[in-house]
């Protein structure tokens, strides 16, 4: 067990080092002189040199990389060019909103996916199954930057039930959460369906039926509980889609999270903030996946002993 945990932690650390290197290289991909791009052509030469020095761009690439990692280890992400504030502060302000949105979207996804998947599996090859899977196919195919405006149009503008954007009111989160959760719900409902179909063929399901359990109890207590194991693993991987989608969804609803900060910083050419946002979102994704893996290995010995290629 400790070997399994250590090896997972080691590869997660390696991945994080690689991710940091890629993020570090981002600023060097700016065409031309990044300092000129960030400050504009009208900037004074002295200002340019000051920024170049502050960002360390006047040093060799390797030196820069070492400084960068040294700063990262001290949780120093630099200063925003726009607001002149420490980037860690900016991120800290935005994290709760994104976490809240991702959590709510996850709840929405599970609430839609589980009933849909169960209906489809229990009534396999019936109109119910086709209907549920058609809904799921539509869900995967609707881009969130279109679903969002449509939901705003219907529920905020026409019906006037929910706020258009922002995060001030308690019910502001409903539309963004539905927008972000829909695609995940679509993927999950297919997983629930196929996973439950497999489980329903097991002997213990036949036993449960044979001893006279009500069909509902067989499905929910015996079937679904076991069928959810593979679904939960996929959920960890799908978190990446959720976090990526959050960037777009936050822009649609002016939701003040990390995604909105990322896009705003791109528009203002505040590249250090862009780098920090990408790094933070990716790191949280890696951390959550590693935790899922470790907890899973702890719960289910087959995972840690099995072939992991």
């Amino acid at each position, binding site marked *: 067990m400790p070997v399994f945990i250590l090896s997972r932690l080691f590869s997660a650390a390696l991945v994080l080092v*690689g991710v940091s290197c890629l993020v570090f290289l981002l600023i060097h991909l700016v065409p031309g002189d990044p300092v000129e791009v960030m400050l504009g052509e009208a900037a004074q030469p002295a200002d340019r040199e000051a920024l170049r020095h502050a960002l360390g761009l006047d040093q060799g690439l390797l030196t820069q990389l070492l400084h960068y990692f040294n700063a990262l280890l001290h949780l120093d992400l630099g200063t925003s060019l726009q607001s002149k504030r420490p980037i860690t502060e900016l991120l800290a302000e935005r994290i709760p909103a994104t976490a809240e949105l991702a959590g709510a979207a996850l709840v929405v996804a599970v609430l839609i996916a589980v009933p849909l998947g169960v209906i489809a599996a229990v009534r396999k090859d019936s109109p119910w199954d086709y209907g549920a899977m058609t809904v799921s196919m*539509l869900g995967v195919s609707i881009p969130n930057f279109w679903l969002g405006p449509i939901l705003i149009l219907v529920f905020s*503008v026409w019906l006037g039930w929910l706020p258009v954007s922002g995060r001030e009111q308690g019910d502001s989160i409903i539309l963004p959460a539905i927008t972000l959760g829909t695609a995940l719900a679509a993927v999950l409902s297919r997983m629930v369906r196929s996973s439950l179909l497999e489980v329903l063929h097991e002997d213990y399901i036949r036993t449960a039926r044979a001893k006279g359990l009500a069909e509902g109890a067989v499905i929910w207590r015996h079937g679904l509980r076991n069928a959810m194991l593979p679904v939960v693993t996929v959920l960890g991987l799908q978190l990446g889609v959720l976090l990526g989608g959050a960037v777009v969804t936050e822009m649609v609803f002016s939701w003040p999270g990390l995604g909105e900060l990322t*896009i705003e910083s791109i528009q203002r050419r505040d590249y250090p903030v862009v*780098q920090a946002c990408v790094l933070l979102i990716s790191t949280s994704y890696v951390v959550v996946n590693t935790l899922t893996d470790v907890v899973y290995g702890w719960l289910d010995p087959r995972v840690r002993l099995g072939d992991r290629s």
Partner: protein
Amino acid sequence: MMRLWLPGTILMLWALGALLGPSLVGDPNHIELQRILASPGPAGWLGFDDLGRPVWQRLVVGAQTSFMVSATVVAVTAVVGSLIGATSGFIGGWVDHVLVRIIDIFLAFPGILLAIALAGVLGPGISNVVIALSVVGWVGFARLARGQVLSLKHREHVQAALALGVRRSRIIIRHLLPLIVAPLIVEGTFAVAGAVIAEAGLSFLGLGVQPPAASWGSMIRDGTRYMLMAPHLVLAPGIALMVVVLGVNLLGDRLRDWLDVRSRP
């Protein structure tokens, strides 16, 4: 379930619209000031946008944008990714170890985030969208091709070719790639759907095509400002986008069943 004709028809129309449409319909940037935000009607069957440009013409040009970008991205990433993955799986050793780490690193970036960051840093423009999506997209093919080759490389015909002294590049291209083409095609189909949405997403964020060029994503973004007065500006490109993505996804599903590819990793 759904037969092949529905996704086939959708994709055919999309491709035809993209390749021939722009030369058949009129100028997408023709401005008629008296028709600003006009609803669908006899003058323009999908109405006019906030600058008085015809929505139908812009929709057709948008089809071209999404088709060209997704076709280029998927062609490049499928070839490069499959070759890298197959080679790495076949050679094994430290090369393979390094590649697996690189794939892990790319997979650590959630969804579209890396593409957004790359497109943001490289600057807006359609060629940068292609670059950003290609940098992100090759990983899926590489991982799939590597896994497939790992399971095939100990087969007799590969061992026989090795024993005969056939060059390794030839073994990969002649004896391995043909066997893994089916799952790669399925992966490629879903990759097209992903690329269409990603291109539109980047254009929606203002990182894709630049005005006055049209993309379904930028049309949706521009349309949201006038949603109350002219909902057709958002509905038309959104429905087009959804129908195309739905068609590609249905085709992928269908191909997966037909080619008997068990599951996507």
